[in-house]
C-alpha cells in the first residue's frame, strides 16, 4: 500500500496509529520506570537490583519551575500503615543534580501520616524520583518530571 491516499484513508491511518500508541501507554510507563533507574546511577546503586513498586506514593512537584533555586516539593505515601509495616526511610534522587542523593528522611517511630514537604534545588530540567523503604523492606517509588527555566548552581559549573 502506498503511503499517500485519499484524505479519508489518511485519517483512518492516523486513528489506527493513535490507537496503537494508546495501547502502548501502560507498557511505556513500565519501561519509563526502568529508564528512571538506568538514568540515575545513584538510584540504581541504592536499589542494587531490587525492584520497587511504582505505586502508593505521590511526589508533587510543579511541572514547570521558573527558578531551580527553590522548587516546592511534597512526598506522600498513602496509608493506612497500622498494624502492618510502616514507612522507615524516604530517599529523594535527582537525575541531573551534581549531588544526586538529594535528601533522606527517616521515621524511626511509626507515623500514620507520611507526608514530607520541603524546597529543593534543581540543576536543570530533569526527573526526580522518591523511594520509600517500609519496615518489612518493601520498596515503593514514584517519579516526577520538572521543566526548570533557571537552573540552580549555574555559576561555577
Amino acid at each position, binding site marked *: 500500500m502506498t503511503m499517500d491516499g485519499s484524505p479519508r484513508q489518511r485519517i483512518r491511518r492516523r486513528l489506527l496509529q493513535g490507537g496503537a500508541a494508546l495501547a502502548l501507554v501502560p507498557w511505556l510507563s513500565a519501561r519509563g520506570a526502568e529508564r528512571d533507574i538506568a538514568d540515575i546511577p545513584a538510584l540504581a546503586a541504592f536499589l542494587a537490583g531490587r525492584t520497587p513498586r511504582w505505586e502508593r506514593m505521590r511526589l508533587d512537584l510543579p511541572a514547570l519551575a521558573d527558578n531551580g533555586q527553590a522548587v516546592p516539593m511534597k512526598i506522600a505515601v498513602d496509608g493506612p500503615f497500622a498494624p502492618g509495616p510502616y514507612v522507615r526511610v524516604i530517599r529523594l534522587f535527582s537525575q541531573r543534580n551534581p549531588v544526586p542523593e538529594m*535528601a533522606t528522611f527517616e521515621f*524511626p517511630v511509626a507515623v500514620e501520616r507520611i507526608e514530607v514537604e520541603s524546597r529543593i534545588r534543581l540543576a536543570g530540567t530533569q526527573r526526580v524520583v522518591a523511594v520509600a523503604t517500609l519496615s518489612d523492606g518493601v520498596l515503593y517509588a514514584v517519579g516526577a518530571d520538572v521543566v526548570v527555566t533557571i537552573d540552580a548552581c549555574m555559576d561555577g559549573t
Partner: protein
Amino acid sequence: MPDARVNVPAEVARDKPFEVRVLVRHPMETGYRTDDGGKAIPRNVVSTFTCRYNGETVFSAHLSPGIAANPYLRFFVTARESGQLTFEWIDDAGIRGDERAAVTVV
C-alpha cells in the same frame, strides 16, 4: 535573629499525627559558587536535622546541597504525651543549632 522558626499546633489529639513545620535559617552553600574574587565558596549545608519528642528521635533528615537555602521541612509526628519537641541540626562547618516547641496532648 533566631536561627529557626518552628510551628507546632497549640493542642494535639492523642495518638493522632500532627503537623510540624520548621524553617532553619541557613545559606545551604552548594560549594559550586564563587565569591566576587573568583574564589570558590566551600560547601556548607545543614547535613543532619533531628527532631526528638520527649527525648526519642521521631524524625531525622540528611540533606544535601539539593535542598534550597533556608531549608524548610514539614512532616508529621504521632502525639503521645504532653512534653517537648526538640530540634537539632548541624552543618558541614560543624555549627550546631537547636530549637524547641511545647506539645500539649488533649
